[in-house]
């Protein structure tokens, strides 16, 4: 009897393996060659309460071309499932989705509603990168970008890697945004724009996606953008937002210098008096390395270096001041400064007579930016400058 049970149980295991095609449980076998592996999903609002989805699966193989499909439905999952009918292969597989794009109109209506699909569906991962299309639709971004064998997935993945070189924006994941919205009621989301790629990449007329700052989400809706010129100030407060940046400064000697800057410290320090928050000292320290010199400036002169450090500090201070003013004008702590001062003095923060949300827009910030120019790279002095008559 026992042997019979063991045998029967072992036989019942086979349909669970997923290796027997039609014989498996609910036909769940997954032969990867028969699947279109979607890596980017875009969503837009459609009609009064519907959804347009646009998906993109990169080309696999030499002569293959990417699969790009668009469809509509009442919900994201409803629209996605309808696309199976149009796939050239057996099935579309969404479990390897890396990018989730929300069109501007959809973002203005209900971000949590669109995020719910990523949070709830068992195929989706919370570490999927999230984007908002500034002044455009996700459908345009997915269907119009790229050429021949490239498509939006490669463009967005490349953009994420480039943030190590240029702090255009930090790409947040769906999980991070969902957590921010749940905990603080607001969040930033990387914004991208659809542009014609003339003068940038070969093949003028090709459409591509470029970073366009951050979308600001409050109460579940897109309320505004942190424009590209304010991003540098915002990134100082964002963990991983400023791995490296390039700052161009007028050197005062008739040229422009480029500095590769990295953030070494940004610590908002709350100052309390009798339990009441008086103001916040924002102390920022930058490290700058000289990456380009176009005049006869003597970068080995301490006085010159100090002057350059002051210029970089002043420029960065201006940027930080602008983003803080913008944030306070919107009455939205999208930089999560409240969270940072809470971590500095949690008990005082918890016992403040007024809630942070109520006092944020009136809070005073004292900025202090300190810059250290530490080194240059291969070249000691600009090419063409001779002897001791520099500067």
């Amino acid at each position: 009897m026992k042997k019979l049970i063991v045998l029967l149980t072992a036989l019942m295991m086979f349909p669970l393996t997923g290796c027997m095609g039609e014989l498996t449980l609910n036909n769940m076998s997954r032969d990867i060659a028969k699947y279109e592996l979607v890596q980017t999903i875009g969503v837009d609002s459609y009609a009064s309460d519907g959804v347009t989805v646009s998906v993109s699966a990169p080309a696999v193989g030499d002569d293959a071309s990417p699969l790009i499909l668009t469809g509509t439905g009442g919900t994201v999952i409803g629209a996605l499932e309808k696309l199976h009918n149009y796939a050239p292969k057996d099935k579309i597989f969404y479990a390897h989705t890396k990018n989730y794009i929300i069109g501007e109109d959809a973002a203005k209506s209900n971000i949590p509603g669109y995020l719910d699909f990523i949070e709830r569906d068992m195929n989706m991962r919370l570490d999927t990168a999230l984007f908002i299309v500034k002044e455009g639709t996700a459908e345009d971004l997915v269907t119009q970008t790229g050429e021949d064998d490239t498509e939006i997935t490669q463009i967005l993945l490349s953009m994420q890697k480039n943030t190590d070189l240029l702090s255009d924006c930090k790409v947040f994941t769906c999980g991070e945004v969902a957590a921010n919205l749940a905990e603080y009621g607001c969040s930033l989301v990387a914004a991208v724009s659809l542009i014609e790629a003339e003068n940038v990449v070969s093949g003028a007329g090709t459409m591509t996606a470029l970073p366009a700052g951050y979308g600001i989400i409050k109460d579940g809706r897109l309320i505004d953008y942190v424009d590209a010129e304010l991003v540098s100030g915002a990134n100082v407060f964002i963990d991983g937002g400023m791995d490296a940046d390039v700052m161009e400064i007028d050197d005062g000697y008739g040229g422009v210098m480029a500095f590769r800057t990295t953030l070494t410290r940004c610590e908002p320090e709350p100052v309390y008096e009798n339990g009441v928050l008086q103001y916040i000292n924002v102390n920022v320290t930058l490290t700058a390395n000289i990456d380009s010199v176009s005049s006869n400036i003597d970068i080995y002169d301490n006085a010159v270096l100090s002057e350059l450090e002051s210029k970089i500090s002043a420029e960065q201070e201006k940027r930080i001041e602008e983003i803080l003013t913008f944030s306070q004008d919107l009455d939205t702590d999208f930089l999560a400064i409240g969270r940072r001062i809470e971590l500095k003095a949690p008990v005082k923060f918890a016992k403040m007579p007024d809630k942070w949300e109520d006092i944020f827009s009136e809070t005073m910030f004292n900025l202090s930016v300190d810059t250290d120019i530490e080194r240059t790279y291969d070249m000691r002095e600009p090419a063409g400058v001779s002897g001791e008559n520099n500067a």
Partner: protein
Amino acid sequence: MKTMRNDKISMRQLMTIAFVSVLAPSIQLIPETVVNYGGSASWLAPLAAVIPVGFLVWLFCRLMGAMKEGEGLTQLMTRVLGTFLGKLVAIAYAVWFLVYAGLMLRSTGERFLSTIYDNGNLNVFIIITLLLVIIGASGHLKSLARSSGVFVIFISILLVIIFLFAIPEINTENLLPVTYLDTKPILTASLSVIHVISPFAYLAFLGGGVKKDPKPVKTVSRWIGLLMIIIMLLLVTTIGTFGEVLAGRIQNTFFAMIRNITIFDIIERIESEVVAIWVVTDFVFLSFLVMSSSEILRVVTVREKRKGFVWLCAGAVLLISFLAAPNAFVLTDLLERLVPIINLSAVFGGLTLIFIVGKLRRKL
């Protein structure tokens, strides 16, 4: 021919069963319930649970030590409480084990549906798991212990891999701040940790098949301590990855965290393998619950063999798994609200009372 003595297992082997078993309810309730009570500081809840769990380890060892040769907790109960009351209380425990096993069996099936087989048939998973449990519970305690010994190695390797690759996903700010204001939430959250650990004490019902250990507290503490560390790591990785609010809202947070893991940008989506491997914890947990209840019925009815009772118990477990909850929402509610109350009462109330009465009546 094997003697009864040869069929006995050591305390260390019994603890391997406890170790594997406790991991089954752990991932169901941790971090969801713990976070909902304790917030971002709830990863410290295992530390707050040390004293109550330490007491339980002591109580378990004292009860095991008070058992005579071949005695389990059922026989000890009849000795302490008298034949009628002792048997009645033991039957109450057996009924609870069957209800608990029924809910856990259903939960095992639900986990497959909510993490891998979205359109699957729940009954298939329930029946296959139960058939395996019948085999596990019908066999010797030694067989279950040896299986657990093998599973411990697999699961330990798996946990080490998961925790290592989860580290890059952790944002330490999600685990902070921790202040004295968190004391009460942490203590409340520790109840969930204590509840998750507490079923190991039910193994005392199988005490008749366990050799006497010269240092039981040391052996048991070592394994239960390891479990507490694992629970703490589960909390740190899940809360650190998702933050307190999201971690408290996600269903199957542990598997959602694993879904995010990418190994060297080469391997990803390993959660289905982990779910499949994790079923061994359910197998051991359910087997020991069915084995314990069938052992209680055997002792109460004064029979030689308990195999027939295993089928009876399995039938009851199947019935309960089908009827106890109309849907996954009710099941979750029962597992998160009702089960902890009964478990904590049965372990801390019931077993402590038996020990005190036994002492007062000089039966221990």
